[in-house]
Structure formats: C-alpha cells, structure tokens
C-alpha cells in the first residue's frame, strides 16, 4: 500500500500528468452532468456541463501545445490530438444544432471523450 502511494505521489512530478489528471476529473464530472441533461433540462446541470466543458477544452489545448513543444511536429501524435478535437467540435455542433435524430448519439460521444481522457492520462504517466 505504501509503495502504491509513493508511486502515485512520484507520478505527479510532471506537469503534463497533473494537467491530464485534472482533465479526467473534470471530464468525468462533465459526463455525469451531461447524462443528467439528456434526461431532463436543468439550469444547474447546464451550468456545470458548460463550465466543465470549457475547462476540459482549455486543458486539452494546453496539453496539445505541451506535446508539440516536448516532441516537435510528429505526424501520428498530431493526428491523434486533432481527432480528439474533432470529436469535441462535432459534439458541440450536435448540441447546438436542431437535429433531434443526431442528439441520441450525444451520450456515446460524451463517453468517447471520457475514454480519450483516460488514454491521455495513460500516456502521460511517467515511466
């Protein structure tokens, strides 16, 4: 147990993993509030979802920039980051659009974003 705790503490010596962890925490909160919003419109849930959404996009952008600063312009990582960003933008478009048929996929897209954050945390854990 003590070893695991020490491992957890030592991991946070890196700014990228700290940001990625905060991103996953906020993304989880955003996902739950989003699910509540799908069930029934609520002012509080709407506020939580919007605030968390903006915060996660900002952290995502910072991590994207840090990745380019640390590793330079490499094709596959950039494609990966842009793919994640395209899912965020698509979700925003569906939320703001009026097509009701597309809205039923929003929960799945939210789950996708949480999975993306899980992967971001995984790849940023220092070895």
């Amino acid at each position: 147990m003590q070893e695991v705790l020490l491992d957890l503490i030592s991991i946070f010596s890196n700014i990228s993993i700290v940001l990625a962890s905060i991103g996953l925490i906020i993304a989880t909160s955003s996902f739950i509030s989003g699910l509540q919003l799908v069930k029934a419109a609520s002012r509080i849930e709407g506020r939580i979802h919007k605030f968390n959404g903006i915060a996660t996009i900002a952290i995502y952008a910072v991590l994207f920039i840090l990745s380019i600063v640390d590793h330079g312009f490499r094709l596959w990582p950039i494609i990966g980051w842009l793919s994640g960003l395209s899912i965020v933008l698509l979700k925003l478009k569906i939320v703001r659009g009026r097509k009701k048929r597309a809205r039923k996929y929003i929960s799945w897209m939210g789950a996708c974003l949480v999975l993306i954050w899980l992967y971001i945390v995984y790849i940023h854990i220092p070895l």
Partner: protein
Amino acid sequence: MIKKAVLALTLLVAFAFDAYGAELFVPDHHSTIQEALDQAAPGDTVTVKPGSYSENIVIKRPVTLRSANGPASTAINAAKKDEPVISINDATGVSIEGLSATGSEVAGIRLTRSSGVSLKGNQTTENLYGIALYDSSDNKIESNTADLNENYGIYLEKSHRNTVVKNSASSNGDRGIFISASDSNTVIGNTANLNTWNGIVLWSAKGNIIRGNKTLRNTYGLVLTESSGNTVDENTSLPNVFIILPILLIYLGILLYLVQKYALKFLYRS
C-alpha cells in the same frame, strides 16, 4: 644481503605493475583510441578523456577500454557507418566501461565469437542495433543504455550463458531486447519501455531466466516464440499504478460533480 633485498623488491614491483597492467591515455599518449588499443598489451587499460572521437574500433586483445568521465562527455561516432562503432572479435576478457557509441548502421557495440567480456555503463544510441552479440557466450552486459536505435536495443544471436542486468533498452524502432537462438542467459532488472514493437522477445531460446524486467508501453511487452524451459517471473508490463490512478481520478470526478451540484444549489437558494 642488501643487493638480494633490492633485487627482490624490484622484481616484486615489476610483477605488481605487470599484474595490474599499464594505463594508456587518449588523446594524451595516443591521438586515436585504436592506436592506443594497438599499442596496449593484454591486461592494459586505455582511458579515454572527454571529447568526441570519430572512429571504428576493433578489439581483439583482453584490454579494458574506459572513459575518464562517463558516457555523457565521451562519445565515439562511427567514422564508417557500415561498420560497428566498437567491434570485439574472437576475444576474451575485454572490458568496456562508460563510453558512448553512436551513428553506426550496424551496431554500437558488437561482439563476435567472444567470451568473458564486460560491458558496463555504456550508452549505445542511434545505431541499427545498440549492443549485438553473435556466437558470444559467458559475457556480462550491465547498466548500459541502449535506447533510440533503429532496430533492437540489445540483440543476442547464438549466444549462451550471458548475463544481461539493469540495462535500459527503450524507445527503439523495433524491439528492446531480442534473444534469438540463445540459451541459458540471465536477463534481470532491465527496462524495455516504449519500443515500437516488443519489449523483450525470446525466439527459439531455451533455459533463459527473465526476471524483474519492466516492459511498459510496447505493442507487446514480453513475447516468447518457439521457446521452452525458460523461467519468466516478476516482470512488469502494467504496474498497479496504471490502473489505480485512472480509477482514483474517476472517483474524484464523481465527487467534483456532487460538490459542484450542491454548491450551485446552495448559491441559487441563497
């Protein structure tokens, strides 16, 4: 009586010097490392002072080649890219310590039909292979860094009873440590992370001990093909923290949601 004592003392001193061997310095005594090695007698030590050297070194005698200040300040770059930076051919008892070998399209350090060789604390990066052993047995490869090579970090072919301990073979273009048609080797406490393909591979290998190695974030961590009788234990491909941390963060996310919800409810009510 005194003459005899002086003679005995002289013989003793001469014997002691012979037993320890002479020390040759590059570039103080010799302009190139190869020149120093050609002049060295068996048992001698060639010490390389900090700097960048462009050579392809061939060692055939039992000598020690070491750097004065470690691999960070003593780099040997391949003068001919189609040859290894350091070749040890048909030799026994060679020792190489604390050197950096880079830029070869063959290998950083290559052993061919050699035994009793010790490679310690060397850095072999940006070669085709970092450290390669062919038909070489009973050698010790310890605490070397064989990262960022085009193919393999450490490669053993038809090489038996070698000890490979505490090396780093990470971020290589293909595999970290590749043991091919080699038996009874001991591979303990190595790190083979972030390799494009496999961390550690045993191919047609028998009776090897693979223990306490870390193989993280490779396509496959540890791969055994057509191999039998190997001892594989206490290796790590996914540490506990990789599972615990995401679960902990998701719990914190749920907690954050509840805090935000009740905080906003309280704000609206008040």
